[in-house]
Each structure stands twice: as C-alpha cells, then as structure tokens.
C-alpha cells in the first residue's frame, strides 16, 4: 500500500505537465522574446533585424513622453486606488457592523460589483458618448442651469484625467468591497466581544483588530490592483483618440507601447523596450510590496 502510493506520486508530473508546456510556449518564451526584441531594431516591415544593444532604451530615456506616460500611469492608478480602498473600507465596515444592521447587504454589494463585469471598451465608448459635446451630460447641466453653455470635455486634460480615474474607480470599488468584506466576516466575533468587554471604542477595534487581520487581503488587493493599473489601456485608449489626448494627459505606458507597435513601420523592437521597462518596474514594485508587507505581518502574528 505504502509503496503503491510512492509510485502514484509520479502521476503529479503528468497532471502538471500541460500547464508547464503551455506556460513555456505561451508565457515564458514570449517574455524572453520580448526581451530579446527590445535589443534589436526589428520592425514588422522587414524580415531581418540586427542587434543594436541598448539603443532602444537610450532613445526611450531620452524621450520625455515616456516619462509622461509612466507618470500618468502611476497617477491614474493612485488617484483611483485611494478612493477605491477608502470607500471599500467604509462600506465593508458598515455592512459587517453588528450594531448598525444595514439591511440588504448582499443586494447592495451585488449592485456595486456589477460595473466590474462590463466590457471596458464599451464602457469607454459609453462615457465618450455621455461626455461628448452634444451628449447627455452637457444637456443635463445646461438645461438645469448649472452651466451657462456646453463644455467641450473631450478637449479638457483635467476632465479627461478625472474621467479615467472615475471610470476605473467605478469599475473596481465593488470588487474591493467584496474582498474586504469577506476578510472582515472571517474574523471571529469573539475577538470583538472580548475587546468590547475591555472597553475598546469602535475606532480602536477597527484600528487594532480589523486592520491587522485583514492585512493579507489588503495586500492582495494592493498588488493585483497595482499590476492591473500599470497595464491600464482600454479606458484611456478608447476614451479619446487612442493617443492619450488631450495634451498626453491620459497617455499610459501601454498606449505608448501600442503606438510604437502600430507606427507606420511597426517598430516592434522599440515597442518591446517599453513593455520591458514597465514589466521590470511593475514586477519590482509588486514583489517589494509583497515582501515588505508580508514580513511585517509575520512578525506581528
């Protein structure tokens, strides 16, 4: 019986083999290929390409639009993440509070999550229509006398940036709420009861019980949101002309990569270098966050 089990354990390799093969072909090799392309002058128009060393990266660092794109990507992510986690914390505290007894918690949660499943390209086109010059937003504001005359939102960098942040927030706050709520409901009620007996205030319970115990989930939300946020594309790309207009205000690094890729020559070497830089930056920050926060958590417990 024992020896039979040992032999059977080799079947584990059989079960994970498709994943490994799939990963090597569709995951790892493309990463390697992107990296090696970034050192060449490859285009879609020519069959051959030559090694140019770090030239693509030198050009990238000499190009101020690259820094604009990276800065935008970070700013757009941060500006939606902070209110997202803030509202999600507020909602999940309310929904899980045993004194408040908010009714229909499941139903609220379900409605708030709905935007997350919407097709982002359709959402971008929708908000483009809503905020177009003759669109419903202008109609409403002008007719209700909030505005003397219609505003050309699409040409306003501040409005467009705000809109991208708002749409991202709109898409994701429900999901974050569900995750934080799940984390909060998995905390034993006995801990709160004990704290109440000790005379802890609501805020103290939140600060010293809830927050430390939901930290792993907060970390998960933070890292996945960061990784997704650094790849922001659909919304800013489709909201205006696909070039991050007006005035590069919503140009993200992925849009820049796409623009290099679809340039007249199809500079895939140069496009790869953008991908590689963002890849390195994102992975570095994600791993840093993961280890920094994870270690602290292990010390605390």
């Amino acid at each position, binding site marked *: 019986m024992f020896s039979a089990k040992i032999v059977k354990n080799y079947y584990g390799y059989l079960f994970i083999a498709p994943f490994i093969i799939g990963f090597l072909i569709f995951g790892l090799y493309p990463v390697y*290929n992107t990296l090696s392309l970034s050192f060449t002058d490859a285009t879609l128009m020519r069959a051959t390409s030559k090694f140019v060393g770090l030239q693509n990266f030198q050009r990238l660092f000499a190009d101020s639009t690259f820094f604009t794109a990276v800065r935008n990507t970070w700013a757009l992510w941060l500006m939606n993440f902070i209110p997202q986690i803030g509202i999600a914390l507020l909602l999940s505290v309310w929904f899980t509070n045993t004194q408040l007894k908010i009714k229909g918690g499941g139903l609220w949660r379900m409605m708030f999550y709905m935007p997350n499943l919407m097709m982002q390209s359709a959402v971008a086109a929708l908000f483009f229509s809503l905020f177009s010059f003759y669109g419903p937003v202008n109609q409403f504001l002008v007719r209700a006398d909030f505005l003397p005359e219609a505003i050309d939102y699409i040409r306003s960098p501040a409005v467009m940036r705000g809109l991208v942040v708002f749409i991202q927030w709109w898409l994701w706050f429900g999901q974050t709420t569900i995750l934080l709520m799940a984390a909060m409901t998995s905390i034993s009620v006995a801990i709160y009861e004990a704290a109440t007996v000790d005379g802890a205030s609501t805020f103290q319970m939140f600060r010293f019980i809830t927050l430390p115990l939901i930290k792993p989930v907060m970390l998960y939300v933070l890292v996945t949101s960061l990784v997704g946020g650094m790849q922001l594309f659909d919304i800013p790309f489709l909201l205006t002309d696909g070039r991050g207009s007006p005035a590069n205000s919503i140009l993200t690094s992925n849009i820049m990569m796409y623009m290099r890729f679809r340039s007249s020559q199809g500079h895939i070497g140069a496009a790869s270098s953008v991908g590689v830089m963002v890849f390195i930056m994102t992975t570095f920050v994600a791993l840093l966050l993961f280890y920094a926060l994870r270690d602290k958590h292990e010390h605390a417990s």
Partner: protein
Amino acid sequence: MTEQQKTLETALPTDVHFKKNYLLRLNITRALIYIFLAILLVITIIPVWILLVNATRSTVEIQQGISLLPSRYLLSNYGILLSKGLDLPLGFTNSLIIALSTTVITVYFSMLTAYGIVVYNFKGKKFFYNSIILLVMIPMQLSIIGFYQWMSKLGLDDNYLSLILPSIASAGSVFFCKQYLDSIVIHDLIDAGRIDGASELGIFHRIMLPIATPGMFTLGIFAFVASWNNFFNAFILITTRDKYTLPMLVQTLRGDVYRHEYGAIYLGLAASLVPIIIIYFLFSRYIVNGISMGAVKE
C-alpha cells in the same frame, strides 16, 4: 465585574434616557448611511441605465434630452447599424466561440494542474506552487509584443488559437482551483477509486470533476466574462475584419461612419453589455462568492 453591575443598578432611571439617546444617534447614523448607499447606487447604475434606454430611442429623441424611460426605436436603430455594415451577429458569434473555448480550456487545465498539486506529493511541488503564486503577481500581458511576433512565426497570428490556447497555463485560475480543491478533496474517496482499479486520470475525470462542479462553474463564469471582455490581446492579434470580436467591433462604433447616429451607437454598446448583465443576474451568487474564494482563506 462588580463595578459595572453597580453602575448599571444605580443608574437605572437615567439609563433609559441614555439608551434612548443612543438609539436616536444610531438611527441617524443608519439613515445617513442609507442615503450614502443610495447615492452610490445611482452612480453605479445610471450610466448603464442611460445606455440601455438610449438604445431604444431615436437619434432625434436622444438629442432632445435625457430620459430614463425606454422608447420604441430599438428595431430601427438595429436597422441603421446593419445598414452601416456593423455585423453585430458575426461579432457576437466570434466572441462566443472564443469565450466558450477559453472557458472550457481554462477550467479543465486549471483543475488538472491543481489536482496534481493537491493530491500528489512529488519532488519540486512546493517550488512549482510558489512559482504559480509568483506568476499571479507578474504582469505577463506586457510581453504581448514578443507574444505577437512568436505567434506570427508559428502562423497563429490573426488566428483564434492564439487567444484561446494560452489559457492552458492560467496561474490565477490554478491558484483558485488549488484553494477550492483543498477544501473538498476526500483522499479516502481517491484511494477507494484506486482499489476499484480506476486509473489516476479516470479518478480525476469520474470522481473528482463531478464533485468539483460548483467550483468549476464559478471559475467558468469568470473565465467566460474575462474572455468576452478582452480587448487588448484581440486588438493586437486579430487583423481580419470578419474575425473581429465584439469589443473590437464596439471600438469601431466611435468612427466617422456612425457620426450622429447616437441611437445606433448606444444599441451597439448595449448589445455587448446585455449578455453579461443577464449572466450576472442569473449567477450573481456564484460570482460574488467566487471573488473572495481565491483571496480569502476560510
């Protein structure tokens, strides 16, 4: 203990007053929270609602102002879309083919991989599982250029296989399945299957998969929605107009051909959202519970 009891006893008359005050404050807080939630609900729903309503209104009506009630131009809007050459049914079919294949492949291979990790103790298993957790955090999508060029070399660019096959190795889904299987795998059942002479793959197919159906269903919904909504990869890889997926068709609605045909534009957008909205209202229980399943250990 005694001190608290004492204060309770001596303060009995005023305590009623105190309690009333406390209840009043609680009720005001509660009312404010409900108002806040209602505002949030309006913000969540109104854009989608306006979209759905406008899909049924004529362009003239839409230009006249906002309405929250549907009109009766749904069919004429659809006629305009068709006359402008937007083949919505084709895009729908294309997206459906890709999404269904991706769903089946994601669910089957993620379950297979996770089962291998959960049931067998092989050398390097820990390293393999840790790598999967790591992969969840690595932005693989950024290698899309290298992926595109590699697919062209293999002759798979402008081919749905390049969108479907990568889901064989979906780290996030394996992570989800591993968490799920950990909680439902019964090792005695597997041993019983072995004694009955079933092969290892046979046990997985005939014993494990039927038990894991709820989890597979949840994962399937997520895989379907993710594939249905995926714009970036399809946008890079697919070039033939007849092969366009729904998100790609939606993007063409912004073009000059549809200028001022607002009703038709809204209808095109609505058509891509409605299937997902229906799926959501049918299966929201699975979806909402599934979100936290990967992240929160129960």
